[in-house]
């Protein structure tokens, strides 16, 4: 990596580590959600940026992770690791079974199929309230306990979620630079040519879909432990759209973009609450303005800004 990139990375890491203890609790709370949504959004972003697939079903795996954690820790009373594991395995299996036939589709058909998946799953979560406690919600999820340290404050959870996010980002960066990453992008850009070079598109897409689902599940399990309470309202179509907004807003092929997109969708609505009832309108307008002003995403906008400032610095 270029030296400049490493320096920027170190600075950002330093800020991310050192500043939060001095921030008010409410802001740290938002940062926690930013981390959690980043992890879920990362999965969607990989599918979008590397495969060109718009996935509107991430809310399903997010919910599965949350419900698995809730069920394992509350109903069965076993350790948190089982919740994470169950969520991941369940999400992976469903992603495999549903993904294999559905990922043959292309473009809008595929997006609609993922959307339909989300709607079906959400309806089932409502109906099967013997399992999920439906809209009443599932409470009493215990706090996480890492080697004796109980994660019961937003600040501690922030460091935990941040660490998980960092690992996921690292893994994603590895993937993008690897042989598999090349094959994915080839498949995205020219599927017929990719086939002629021996690339098996369907299996590759399915594996990335499984990976994306696993990210979603991990985010969901974290969410369950953070709030100690989950109910079906958190897992609807709005969430699925939010998870898609995040990577698109940040810049689909960019990893830091996902984090920035997540920060946007958590911090901006919060900043707008002082406008009272107008806040949702303003959020929509802000979103519109951001897209029109920075069509390549926030990362693209930042890149332009840095180019502009470098040019001015030279003048």
């Amino acid at each position, binding site marked *: 990596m270029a030296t400049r990139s490493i320096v920027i990375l170190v600075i950002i890491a330093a800020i991310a580590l050192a500043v939060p203890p001095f921030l008010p609790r409410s802001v740290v709370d938002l940062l926690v959600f930013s981390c959690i949504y980043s992890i879920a959004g990362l999965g969607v972003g990989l599918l979008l940026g590397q495969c060109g697939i718009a996935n509107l079903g991430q809310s399903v795996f997010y919910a599965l992770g949350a419900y698995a954690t809730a069920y394992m820790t509350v109903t069965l009373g076993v350790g948190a690791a089982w919740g994470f594991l169950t969520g991941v395995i369940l999400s992976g299996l469903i992603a495999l079974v549903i993904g294999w036939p559905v990922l043959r589709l292309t473009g809008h058909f595929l997006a609609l199929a993922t959307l339909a998946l989300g709607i079906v799953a959400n309806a089932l979560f409502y109906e099967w309230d013997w399992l999920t406690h439906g809209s009443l919600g599932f409470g009493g999820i215990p706090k996480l306990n890492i080697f004796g340290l109980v994660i019961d404050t937003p600040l501690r959870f922030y460091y935990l979620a941040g660490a998980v996010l960092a690992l996921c980002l690292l893994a994603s960066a590895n993937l993008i630079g*690897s042989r598999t990453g090349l094959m994915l992008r080839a498949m995205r850009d020219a599927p017929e040519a990719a086939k002629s*070079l021996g690339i098996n598109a369907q299996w590759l897409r399915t594996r990335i879909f499984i990976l994306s689902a696993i990210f979603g599940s991990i985010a969901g399990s974290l969410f369950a432990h953070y709030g100690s309470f989950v109910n079906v309202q958190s897992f609807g179509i709005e969430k699925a759209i939010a998870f898609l907004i995040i990577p698109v807003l940040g810049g689909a092929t960019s990893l830091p973009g996902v984090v920035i997109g997540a920060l946007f969708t958590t911090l901006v609505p919060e900043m707008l609450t002082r406008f009272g009832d107008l806040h949702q309108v303003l959020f929509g307008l802000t979103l519109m303005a951001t897209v029109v002003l920075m069509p390549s995403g926030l990362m693209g906008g930042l890149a332009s800004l840095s180019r502009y400032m470098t040019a001015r610095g030279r003048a």
Partner: protein
Amino acid sequence: MSAPLLSLENVGHAFGGFTVLREVALDVPKGEIVGLIGPNGSGKTTLFNIISGYVRHRSGRIVYDGVEMRNQTIQQRSYAGMVRTFQTPMVFEKMTVLENVMVGCNKITSSGMVEGLLSLPRARKEAKAMREQAEMYCEKFSLSSVAHQLAHNLSAGQRRILEIARAVVGKPNLLLLDEPSSGLNPDEIDELDRSIRALNDAGLTILLVSHDMDLMSVARRVHVLYFGRIIASGSMEEIQANPEVREAYFGS
């Protein structure tokens, strides 16, 4: 005399009530360049699609490297050493030239997704090897100067050369070139001619489809495909002297 690398026996195909190919028979001997010419609509691209596995033929046999090709997928044929180019060069637009060629190396490497995620040693080693191999081939095909440019920004001629470089970096046995000179200017066609001869000199077997008679001179043997049937076979001189061919092409 050893068996031909590719052999088409009595291949026929039809769709939509339309017979596209009938009784097509030709051999591509190992290490040679064989040409296929014919007017538009004579079925040349369909034949290529059939050989490379994009379309399943209705009748006849296709034998590649001693094995009959019936249900093998495109990817399986690719791994067996068969690569092709497309009438309009299909490069990976949003990837750099170097990355395009690296994709061609995927057949000679095998690390999987999990290894990539965890950046395991084998994955790193293979990524490095792919890069080096790709750089070498960019050099060979004079693409080094644009190696880090997006494929999207290349000229038509450069795209064609990139497509070929990407196809041969995986060390194939048979290269199918579909109208490689279309959209190229005369200089680029000369470059193409040189590249094809160089590849053949190094031992690559090539089946070439083209309407460009000059480019066809690289081929030892040429078959003329006229509305689905082979009407003549031989060297370029023999073909051009053939009365049936003259009739078909020039109406004389």
